C-alpha cells in the first residue's frame, strides 16, 4: 500500500490545538464552566491567530462570560496583550488599538471579541462603525445564543422558540417567538467589508482555517462562531462539540465565507439531519417535545434550517 492511503495521512492535517507548540493564548486555570463552548472557541481562534502572526496579536474583549471567567483580579488567563473596556464598545476600542498601531507603524494584528449580546445587540453601533470605516480589526463573535453571563436572557441571536430566562414558555406562549433573530454575518456583508465568515467549534479545522485567513486581511473582518453553552442550553457538559456538530449537520448553523459582500463558499453537509435530533438534546427546547407541546411547532425551526440549506447551498432539503 502507498503511504498516501487514508490511514497514513492524518499527520498532515492537524490543528494548532494538537501541536506541541500550542500557544495557549487562553491558558488553564480560568473559571469557565465545564464544557464551555466559548472558552474553547476563544482558545482555538486566538491560538490560530497567534501561530499565524508569530504572537503579534492584541485582543480587545467585550464584557461577558469570557471576560469574567478569564480575568478576575488577581488572576489572569491571557497569554497575550488583552484589554477589556465595556460591554458595548469592543469594536470601537479595537479601532483605537488599530489606529495606534498604524500611527506607530507597528505590524500587530488586532482582534476584538465578544458574546452574541455584546455583538449583535448592545455593540451593534460600534461594530457597524468599525465595519463602515473598514478599520483593520478582526471581530470575533462567540455566539452562544443568549446573554449567558447575566443568567441566560434572550438576545437577538437567540433561536426561535428557545427557552431563556426572559422567554419562559407558558401555555400558548412557546418561548422566544420574536421572529428569527438578527443575521449579523449578513449585516456585516452588507457593509461590503473584505471578509465575513461563520464557523463553529463543531468544525475546528474550518474554524482555524478561517481565522488564519482573516488575520492577514487588511480592513474589517467578522467571524461568528457557534459556541454551545451547557448551562444556558441545558445539556450534559460532555455534549458541547456534539451539539455544535448537529447544528451544522441540520443546517441551522451554515458555515460559509463571504468576500466583499458576496458569499464565496459554504460547507456542504454530507448527510443532512432533521433539526429534531439537534433540538431534542437541549432543555431549552424541551417544551417543543413534551406532552403539552403544540403539534409540530419545532417544524418552524426546521423551516429556518431549510432556508439556510437553500440560501447557502448546503445540499438538498430532506426534511420538509
Amino acid at each position, binding site marked *: 500500500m502507498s503511504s498516501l492511503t487514508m490511514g497514513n495521512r492524518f499527520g498532515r492535517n492537524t490543528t494548532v490545538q494538537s501541536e506541541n507548540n500550542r500557544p495557549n493564548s487562553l491558558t488553564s486555570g480560568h473559571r469557565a464552566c465545564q464544557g464551555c463552548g466559548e472558552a474553547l472557541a476563544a482558545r482555538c481562534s486566538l491560538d490560530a491567530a497567534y501561530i499565524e502572526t508569530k*504572537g*503579534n496579536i*492584541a485582543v*480587545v*474583549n467585550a464584557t461577558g462570560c469570557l*471576560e*469574567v471567567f478569564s*480575568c*478576575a*483580579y*488577581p488572576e*489572569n488567563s*491571557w497569554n*497575550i*496583550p*488583552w*484589554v*477589556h*473596556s*465595556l460591554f*458595548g*464598545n469592543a469594536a*470601537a*476600542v*479595537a*479601532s*483605537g*488599538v*488599530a*489606529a*495606534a*498601531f*498604524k*500611527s*506607530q507603524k*507597528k505590524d*500587530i494584528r488586532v482582534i476584538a471579541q465578544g458574546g452574541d449580546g455584546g455583538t449583535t445587540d448592545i455593540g451593534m*453601533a*460600534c461594530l*457597524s*462603525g468599525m465595519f*463602515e*470605516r473598514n478599520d483593520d480589526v478582526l471581530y470575533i463573535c462567540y455566539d452562544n445564543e443568549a446573554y449567558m453571563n447575566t443568567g441566560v436572557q434572550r438576545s437577538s441571536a437567540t433561536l426561535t422558540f428557545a427557552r431563556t430566562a426572559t422567554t419562559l414558555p407558558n401555555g400558548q406562549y412557546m418561548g422566544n417567538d420574536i421572529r428569527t433573530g438578527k443575521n449579523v454575518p449578513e449585516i456585516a456583508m452588507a457593509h461590503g467589508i473584505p471578509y465575513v465568515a461563520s464557523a463553529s467549534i463543531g468544525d475546528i479545522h474550518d474554524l482555524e482555517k478561517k481565522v488564519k485567513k482573516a488575520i492577514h486581511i487588511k480592513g474589517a473582518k467578522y467571524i461568528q462562531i457557534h459556541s454551545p453553552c451547557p448551562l444556558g442550553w441545558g445539556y450534559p457538559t460532555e455534549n458541547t462539540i456534539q451539539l455544535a456538530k448537529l447544528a451544522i449537520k441540520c443546517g441551522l448553523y451554515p458555515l460559509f465565507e463571504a468576500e466583499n459582500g458576496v458569499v464565496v463558499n459554504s460547507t456542504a453537509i454530507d448527510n443532512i439531519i432533521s433539526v429534531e435530533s439537534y433540538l431534542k438534546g437541549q432543555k431549552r427546547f424541551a417544551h417543543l417535545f413534551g406532552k403539552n407541546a403544540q403539534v409540530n411547532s419545532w417544524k418552524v425551526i426546521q423551516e429556518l434550517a431549510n432556508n439556510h440549506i437553500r440560501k447557502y447551498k448546503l445540499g438538498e432539503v430532506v426534511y420538509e
Partner: protein
Amino acid sequence: MLQQLEGSQALAKAIALCRPQVVCAYPITPQTHIVEGIGELVRNGTLKNCEFLNVESEMAAISVAIGSEAAGVRSYTATSSQGLLYMMEAVYNASGLELPIVMTLGNRTIGSPINIWNDHSDAMSVRDAGWLMLFAENNQEAVDLHIQAFKIAESIKCPVMVCVDGFVLTHAYEQVNIPEQNEVDEFLPKYNPHISMDKKHSYAIGAMVSPNDFMEVRYLAHKRQLDALDVISNVREEFLSKFNRNSGGLIRGYNIDGADTVIVAMGSVLGTIKDAVDNLNASGNEKFGVLSIISYRPFPQNEIKKALNQAKRVIVVEKAFALGKGGILSQEIELVLKGLNIDVISIIAGIGGRIITKQMLMECFENPKDKFQFLGLNRATIEKEYQSPCISKVGKE
C-alpha cells in the same frame, strides 16, 4: 506668535502642537470646530503621524481613545453636553483604566428641553467620574491648559478634561499667542507610555475586581487625584518659566487681599465678573475680590480656604445647579469654609446660555437679596406658566 483666531481654531492648533497620534471626531455644537480644525491640520500635513477617525458616536469617540491609549499612544477627543452623556459609561471607564486621554469639553447645557448654549451642567454631571477637570477663563488660557493637560495626564496616568465655555470661548475671536512647535516639544516631550499592547510589554488590563480589593482600587484613584494637586501646580510653574505666561494652576486670586466680599466662579464668566468688581471697587466702600477656580477636580480645598478665610462674604456665581438641592460649587465652597462664619451666597447664572451682563452682576454683588438666587430669572414667564392647565403649583416658593 500672536494671532487673531476663533477659540476653536486656536485650540486645534494648540492640540496639534502636542502631537497626538490618534484623534477621534464626532460632531456636536459647540465643540465641532475644534475637531474640524484638527482634521484639517492632519490632512494638510501640519500634524504628522496622526490617525484622524470620523466615528459614529461619542461612545465610539471615547472608546477609540481608550483603545489607542491602551496601546500606548497619545490620544485626544472632544465633546459637549449630550455627547458627554452619551459616552458617560466610557468616561468612568477611561479613568478607571488609568488612561491619560485629554478631552475638550465645549461646555453646553443638557436637555431636555434641547438647547445648544453654554452652561456647566455637562461638566457637573461627570464631576465624580475620576477625571481631572480644568476650567479655562479665556482662549489664551484654554490653549495653555491643553498643552499643560497632556503633561499632567501622562505624568499621573489620569485623563484630563479641559472645560472651555461653548460659544463664549469656542466661537469667540480673540488674540491668542500660539507657541512655537519647538517650545512645545521641549515642554511636552515625546509620550513615554506606561503600557502598550505589543508582545514585549504585554498586559491584561480591565480585570474584574471583587469586594476584596475594589475599595482599595478606588482609594488609590482618589489618592491619585489628590496627588494631582501638586502636579498641576508644578506644571503651571514650569509653563510659566518656559512660556512666560501665568496660565493654569489650581486657583487664581484677583484683588483678594483685604477684600470684604470675594466672588468665586469658573470659566469665561470670570472676565465679566472682574469688570464688575473693578467698577464696584472704583466707586463704593466695600472692597471686592475674585477667586478663579481652574482645577475643579481635584478640588483644591486647602488653597481655596486660604484664599477665602479673610473674607466676610463669599458669592459663588455658578453655571449649573443640582435640581432639588441648589448650587453645586457653592455647596463645596460652603464645606471648605465650615465654621469660619463666612456668609456663602449662591448665584445661579447663565443657565442655558442666558446672558450675564456686568450691570446684572454689579447690582447683585452690591445687594445680594437672597442666599440662593437665579440671576435674571423672568418671573413673568413663570407666573404665566403657572396659569397653564398643564402645570400645577403646589405649596409656596
